[in-house]
């Protein structure tokens, strides 16, 4: 019984393996034939951050479609190769290698998660492939880029340092909070945002009364929230994951924190789905983001409309930044006059690109100068409180 089964299983798996090998062989051959600009996209397509990945891919695909429909870049079409990082550095690095070695991409956009981007930087650097980051906010990414070391890494996204300063300033000056509890995701993103918050809080006479970090996939926050209820914190500083926000909000409701403790930071507090999960808790929540669907500019409004028409869903921040970054890259390739990576890199460092939130230029650390948008939830709807920019203070080398 066992023997026949093993033999049968062996035959079937051999058949499947040879079939898959055949298929990949065929498709690679077909792709190598045409003259396209090969753009890799590393994003979390599965795992706890998969929703970000889906938005990233949709945003990038929309931009590629717009560019290709308009005749491409000097007649060349862009083709996207999507690779799954699962939100983890290990998978992100192998996804990057796969894109470079197998798919032969010249440009990579990625990743959403700071931990993954930091791991991808040396890989892209070794291969001499242009890595454009569109959605990670850990300052270390550009501390190490440009004059900091990595010549092939650029970032078109504001950093946590800006965000931490803006949120802390607003919470203290406009809302009068002084006692804060920290509940952030345990990653390079969550930890560094808190490090910078701690740097600026004393300027506003704020103090941190408790500090906790949660793992991706954590679902039980009751113990921590009970502690926060008892330690007198007025606000929870949360730099977290969008999909965890509804869980925390519901458990805050359960413990009677609604209306007593406010969520501040970043974690998609402003989407309809999140607000619906516990409206009483999210009332008054303060968030700083790179972009929001409600942002008032003609380009931004046009993007929301196009995205809704294409995917029947409102875009989030990640959809926008990936859409925007593909357009930025297209303009750089156009200005370089050739898809040669070295020329594109030079064009990128000199670019003056008009994005939906303002003009983008890069500093000597290959970091885009971009504002942060601040919003507060009022009557169950996000209300924009303004766009703030701050210069980055790089540590002395």
């Amino acid at each position, binding site marked *: *019984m*066992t023997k026949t*089964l093993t033999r049968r299983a062996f035959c079937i798996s051999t058949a499947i393996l040879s079939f898959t090998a055949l298929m990949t062989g065929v498709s690679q051959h077909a792709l190598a034939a045409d003259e396209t600009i090969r753009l890799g996209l590393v994003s979390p*397509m*599965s*795992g*706890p951050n*998969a*929703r970000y*990945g*889906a938005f990233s891919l949709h945003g990038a695909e929309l931009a590629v479609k717009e560019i290709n429909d308009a005749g491409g870049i000097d007649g060349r079409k862009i083709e996207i190769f999507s690779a799954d990082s699962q939100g983890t550095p290990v998978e992100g690095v192998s996804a990057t290698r796969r894109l470079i070695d197998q798919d032969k991409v010249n440009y990579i956009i990625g990743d959403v998660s700071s931990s993954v981007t930091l791991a991808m930087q040396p890989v892209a650097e070794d291969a001499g492939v242009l890595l454009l980051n569109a959605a990670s906010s850990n300052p270390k990414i550009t501390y190490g880029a440009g004059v900091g070391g990595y010549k092939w890494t650029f970032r078109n996204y504001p950093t946590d340092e800006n965000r931490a300063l803006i949120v802390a300033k607003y919470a203290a000056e406009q809302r009068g909070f002084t006692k804060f509890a920290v*509940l952030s995701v*345990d990653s390079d993103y969550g930890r560094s945002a808190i490090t910078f918050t701690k740097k600026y809080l004393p300027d506003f006479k704020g103090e941190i009364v408790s*500090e*906790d*970090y*949660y*793992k991706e*996939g*954590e*679902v*039980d*926050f*009751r*113990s*921590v929230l*009970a*502690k926060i209820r*008892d330690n007198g914190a007025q606000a929870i500083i949360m730099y977290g994951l969008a*999909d*965890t926000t*509804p*869980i925390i909000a*519901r*458990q805050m*409701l*359960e*413990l*009677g924190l609604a209306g007593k403790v406010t969520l501040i930071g970043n974690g998609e507090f402003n989407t309809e*789905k999140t607000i*619906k*999960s*516990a409206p009483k808790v999210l009332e008054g929540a303060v968030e700083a983001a790179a972009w929001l669907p409600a942002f008032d500019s003609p380009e931004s409004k046009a993007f929301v409309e196009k995205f809704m028409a294409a995917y029947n869903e409102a875009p989030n921040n990640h959809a926008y930044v990936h859409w925007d970054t593909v357009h930025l890259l297209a303009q750089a390739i156009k200005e370089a006059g050739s898809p040669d990576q070295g020329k594109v890199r030079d064009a990128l460092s000199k670019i003056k690109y008009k994005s939906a939130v303002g003009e983008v230029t890069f500093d000597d650390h290959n970091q885009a100068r971009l504002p942060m948008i601040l919003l507060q939830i009022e009557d169950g709807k996000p209300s924009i409180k303004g766009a703030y920019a701050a210069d980055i203070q790089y540590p002395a080398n």
Partner: protein
Amino acid sequence: MFSTILEQIINGIVTGSVYAIVAVGMTMIFGVLRAINFAHGEYYMLGTFGAWFAIDYLGLSYEASIVVGVLSTIVIAYVVGKFVMQRMVGAPAESGVLATLGIALVLQNTVILVFGGGYKFFSGGYIEPVSILGFSLAEQRVIILIVCLIVFIGLELMVTYTRMGKSMRAVSQNVECCEVVGIDVPQVVLRTFILGAALAALSGVLTAPVNVSVYGGMGELITFKTLPIIIMGGLGNVRGTFFAAMILGIAESLVATYVGLQFRDTVGFATLILMLMWRPHGLFSTQARF
């Protein structure tokens, strides 16, 4: 101070009851098959997805979605049981590990393929807080506690008094002797497996309203939480599993409060290592079962 500790213990008991319902199925399957079911968390996920599908696509109520979630998991468990688990009677331990790991991957990725990898929002259930002894709990958690007690009393009675329970115990003690006296071993295995999967699904549907987010990979975490529990409880021991789950739940809750949330998951794994070093047969039995 005292009331905080008491509240954390209550939190731990609620968390423990979720673990308990999932783990008891895994421990019973181990009892009859001598195989750790690494796909167990996936049945928890399937139950939740079934219920989410019933609410979001079929427009059913939360109560009806519990039935849909559990029934659809039973159907899948029947197929898996028939084609995989039954063949593992008497097979070496490693084939059980490989087969169940494979099933876990297939189930998880099928769900991701069909419904996408993103989080889904579970909208059903009773999330309003109620006050008990001065502590505030969601109504749903009270339901979870009550269901957990009913399930365990029911299982205790079943294992002790019914024919199925007795044959399960017999199979877990000696497969050859069962075959000699004419017990249909593959049938007992199949039934135990379906029962275990159904309990995991039930637990998933009951926790979905408080955990809110539903996604394909959610079962993994549960599988890894149940491993230390079933080892602590003594593999195959129903009553032991209950207490082990409560101990782990309470310990996790206290660690999350007094040490830090980020250390919560270490409790289970530290327990696992310590148990394997000093009492590999579990806290509640005096003899190793294998």
